[in-house]
């Protein structure tokens, strides 16, 4: 097997183990609620319900789903079996809607918002950071503190301020939602334009904060590389500046790719809260609703989905990294 193949298998093993632990935590932590969680939850959610038949039915549904009367090990097996068959339980808040159905409706919105926003922010941030390190002077003196300040603003804070300024005061963008409510989702230009208009503000708020963090990291890496011996050597050899800049950029880029893998969890978390501010119909907004209604199955469905998505993103980045990192390629050549 090639070195790259071995690398992938090894990575896969580790990510699989991590996944098992993430699923385990997702199973175990909500079950640590003291007492009988089912009766606790049902009594809390049925407050004000008078129809005792409904209450009984709700109770039985969750008793079966949680399997609370069985030992913990067996409960876990039931949980995993349900997971594998794509069953995440029934929502309390939107009873009797299954959690998977709610999540399925939310996922396209979240991916459509976050994937482009994080990628664009990451790319722009890296370019800006590299330029700041290379140009130095006034450019660096302005960009660096600004980037640092933007990076210290939590995602949702910037979102709330942008919402207030651009949507409320200036009326440039709509206030909330993913599209105009009077429109029926369809493949028409009108619907598409409405989606884009609603997409702009949340998108920009995520991009801006991401740029800040990435620019700082890239600037640091680039300054480190610019001070290294190979740059001095290349300069002494008389190699053109633009060429040296390319060497530096490529070398500084590698750690930034790992950096993306490591910070993607935080970014996704921050962007999810961004959604709440704009009432964007994604996972974040659903989670907010679920937490307010103590809708445990929906909460744990959301957290599980987020964990899996972040793991997948990390795994993908690791695979790409192994492909472009010259050290892994070099090891491959040696093998042959």
């Amino acid at each position: 097997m090639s070195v790259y193949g071995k690398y992938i298998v090894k990575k896969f093993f580790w990510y699989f183990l991590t996944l098992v632990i993430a699923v385990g935590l997702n199973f175990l932590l909500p079950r640590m609620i003291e007492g009988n969680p089912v009766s606790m939850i049902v009594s809390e959610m049925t407050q004000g319900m008078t129809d005792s038949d409904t209450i009984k039915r709700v109770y039985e549904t969750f008793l079966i789903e949680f399997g609370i009367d069985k030992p913990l090990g067996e409960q876990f097996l039931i949980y995993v079996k349900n997971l594998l068959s794509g069953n995440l339980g029934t929502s309390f808040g939107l009873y009797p809607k299954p959690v998977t159905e709610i999540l399925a409706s939310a996922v396209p919105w979240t991916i459509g918002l976050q994937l482009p926003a994080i990628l664009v922010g990451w790319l722009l941030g890296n370019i800006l950071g590299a330029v700041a390190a290379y140009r130095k002077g006034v450019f660096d003196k302005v960009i660096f503190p600004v980037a640092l300040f933007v990076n210290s603003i939590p995602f949702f804070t910037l979102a709330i301020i942008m919402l207030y300024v651009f949507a409320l005061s200036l009326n440039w963008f709509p206030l909330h939602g993913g599209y105009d409510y009077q429109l029926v989702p369809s493949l028409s230009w009108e619907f598409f334009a409405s989606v884009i208009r609603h997409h702009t503000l949340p998108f920009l708020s995520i991009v801006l904060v991401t740029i800040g963090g990435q620019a700082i990291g890239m600037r640091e890496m680039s300054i480190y590389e610019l001070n290294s011996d190979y740059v001095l050597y290349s300069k002494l050899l008389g190699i053109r500046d633009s060429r040296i800049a390319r060497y530096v950029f490529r070398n500084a880029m590698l750690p930034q790719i790992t950096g993306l893998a490591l910070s993607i969890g935080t970014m996704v978390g921050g962007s999810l809260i961004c959604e709440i501010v704009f009432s964007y119909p994604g996972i974040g907004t659903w989670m907010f609703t679920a937490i307010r209604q103590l809708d445990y199955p929906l909460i744990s469905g959301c957290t599980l989905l987020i964990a899996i998505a972040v793991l997948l993103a990390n795994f993908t980045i690791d695979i790409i990294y192994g492909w472009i990192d010259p050290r892994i390629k070099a090891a491959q050549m040696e093998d042959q």
Partner: protein
Amino acid sequence: MNSSFRILIKSPKFMFGACTLLAMIGLVLIYPLFNRSDPLEMIALAYQPPDAKLLLGSDNFGRDLFLELIYGIRTSLQVGLIAGVFATAIGLVIGLTSGYIGGMIDNLLTAVTNIFIVIPSFVILILISVSIDSRSSFVTAVIIGVTSWPWTARAVRAQTSSLRNRDHVNIAKISGYSTPRIIVSEILPYIASYVVMAFVLQTASGILSEASISMLGLGPYNTISLGIIMNWALVFEAPVAGAWWAFIPAAISIAMITFSLYMMNTGMDEIFNPKIRS
């Protein structure tokens, strides 16, 4: 230690951060001595704009937002510091153990660290917060601390394992020093600057985590924090009501605190790490 402190004072970035932070801490400690009213007391109508009496207006319950903000900053700082202490301490212990002892223990601890770096701490934070019924601000801080140690652990481990085979450590070993003594006197001084910097960053991210988790409605009970003020503003639709004073000051306070902490960190980084000075 004394000399590095003297260099730190000369760094404008560090001093800017430290002064901003100290000014905020001073305000938060002193103001309640003059204004002894309860921040949760309702004294005005809902969303009254700022005027001479109510510096930052009132919130949806008609409470004095300036007073709430002062108490909010205090809670947020406390939560951040406690979370920072826990995260740094756990990270330090795990990093030192795995980096210094090496072998199987190192493999095991590194694997655990890597696993918890990949699982988003945000998710674990939500799951624990949902499962715990009564959350004081201390409990919230501890939960944030125990979910955010892996970064520190990884950095400390890398530093420690590179120090482990240095001559002065070997000499200490030959001289019959006990392991804890070697770690304290031969390893810790070399990584002290990293640990302080990690603590500053962990505190900043603790404050951000508290704000995020409170925004979701999973914050501490019976207290006011900056995240909780933002949560109230959002739940009671302050932006739609045009009440910018209900969320902009809190938002800027969070940004100011974290910015000053980041500035302190950058200032320290430039001093302890001469290579990245531009």
